């Protein structure tokens, strides 16, 4: 009756979100009076696997197979559901990232397990099993009861802090036999964006809007982001105009992010943009218009000219770091 958590890896390494998941799973396991089993798929060395134990994983199942290099939704669903059945897991925890969105719904149908998608808190109650998630793009939150015996929870990124809770972490290596011919996903080419901080992973994000007036003015934003170790983002008109890459567009139809700190420079705060950032722990807004809607969502604000304020902020951050 354990809690199974799928711990995704990137080139053999875990990220902060992995530890968020394990901590969450550990907390849920405690509520259910049971164990946490972590499932890792791919080539992760023993040392890295052991780190899962730091956050509460009692057992770690390590599945390696050449054919699992490609993310084929059906194959991954097969593996996870087999492991879930073999371990008799009652609750399965997966991230709400792209991989999770690809696999979790299939898993739900495979195991006839109800699914709470994009959950942001620990279960509100066990009987009935009730989870908390956002709906209406952040305009409302729902208490959702999962009625089935097996439950799946996909956890929204950065909604649960990793908590160190050292556990035994015994590793079990499992061989699976994947029929290559059953893998339908055919990858023709891969393009990786190297170096930049992945926006959805970033703890701090510095974002620019139309108030920056021109793509040539992005220097201060990039500099501030670099100093803070932040990712850069932008509002929709900026992405549509081609000033910044489409991947930086945060908003209802762009990326939904929930960093610890979101700094919005020259962004008015249209509803659609706020829907993309409302999960942020702290929102800072810099805008010349004191009536801009962004200030209603912000925790801190400066009414002023970004071109004057940003250089001073940059100076202040440099001072803080020294």
């Amino acid at each position: 009756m354990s809690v199974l958590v799928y711990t995704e890896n990137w080139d053999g390494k875990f990220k902060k979100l992995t530890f968020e998941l394990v901590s969450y799973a550990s907390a849920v396991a405690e509520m259910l009076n049971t164990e946490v089993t972590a499932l890792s798929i791919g080539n992760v060395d023993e040392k890295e696997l052991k780190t899962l134990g730091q956050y509460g994983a009692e057992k770690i199942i390590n599945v390696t197979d050449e054919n699992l290099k490609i993310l084929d939704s059906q194959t991954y669903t097969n593996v996870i559901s087999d492991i879930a059945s073999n371990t008799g897991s009652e609750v399965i925890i997966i991230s709400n990232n792209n991989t999770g969105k690809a696999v979790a719904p299939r898993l739900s149908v495979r195991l006839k397990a109800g699914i709470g998608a994009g959950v942001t808190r620990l279960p509100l109650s066990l009987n009935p099993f009730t989870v908390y998630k956002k709906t209406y793009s952040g305009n409302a939150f729902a208490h959702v009861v999962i009625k089935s015996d097996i439950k799946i929870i996909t956890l929204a990124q950065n909604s649960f802090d990793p908590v160190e809770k050292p556990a035994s972490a015994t590793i079990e290596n499992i061989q699976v036999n994947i029929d290559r011919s059953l893998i339908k996903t055919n990858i023709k080419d891969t393009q990786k964006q190297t170096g930049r901080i992945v926006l959805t992973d970033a703890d701090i994000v510095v974002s620019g809007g139309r108030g920056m007036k021109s793509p040539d003015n992005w220097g201060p934003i990039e500099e501030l982001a670099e100093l803070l170790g932040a990712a850069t983002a932008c509002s929709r008109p900026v992405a549509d105009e081609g000033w910044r890459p489409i991947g930086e567009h945060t908003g209802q139809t762009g990326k939904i992010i929930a960093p610890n700190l979101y700094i919005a420079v020259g962004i008015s705060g249209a509803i659609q943009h706020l829907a993309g950032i409302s999960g942020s722990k702290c929102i800072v807004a810099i805008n010349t218009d004191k009536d801009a809607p962004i200030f209603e969502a912000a925790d801190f604000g400066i009414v002023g000219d970004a071109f004057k304020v940003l250089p001073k902020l940059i100076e202040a951050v440099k001072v803080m770091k020294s």
Partner: protein
Amino acid sequence: MKILVCISNVPDTTTKIRFAEGNKTIDTTGIQWVINPWDELSLTRTLELKDDPSGGVKSVTVAHVGTADSEPTIRKALAIGADDAVRVNADSSDAFFVAAQLAEVIRKEQYDIIMCGIESSDFNGSLVGGMISEFLGIPSLSAVSALNIENGQPVMVREIDGGKEVVTIPVPFVAIVQKGIAKEPRIASMRGIMMARTKPIRVFDPVAAESLTEIKILEKPATRAACKFVDAENPAQLIDLLQNEAKII
């Protein structure tokens, strides 16, 4: 090639959300209903592919699970250019139920590609597309930001963390599409609106299926405390607040 586009009916994105009696559902008075924005982009891309004769797309059908109240939205999809529509007459209770209904529709008629928006703006589940594919036992590809047809074969771009992949999958499959799949949503032309009246909406009864989840309560998000303003002449104070008061840098 026959393509099916699944659409859901959602309140317009500027709607102010209020709750009905009992706080289990939203108050629908005065709501303007629209096609879910991701489904709109999904439909737009599909119609673009149909417009190109070299792609070999013969027909575009839209499918929806909902009551007769959703028909205006389905008509909009027909006005934008879909050839015909299917509605399963049932309340869309949860994703599992909806996916089961749509899977049954697809089982009856053969489709090559099933297009689903990656999420709907009402329940933000990102579930139906993947569930349909599992019910049918066919492959699925998620986070699809581009879909082209080259030499009769669908070629897609999938977004991964920090990059993208070019992927092909043999038909039939489910494409779960996100922003980027089409540049902006197509709107209906006058002719499309007039033609929409003549296009058929077939109504099916639902098959027996469970719903595995249920919304017990809806609540408003916690209101943030009012914004603390820092003087523009002294932005350094903001850094100080973020470091010592909010403790995030």
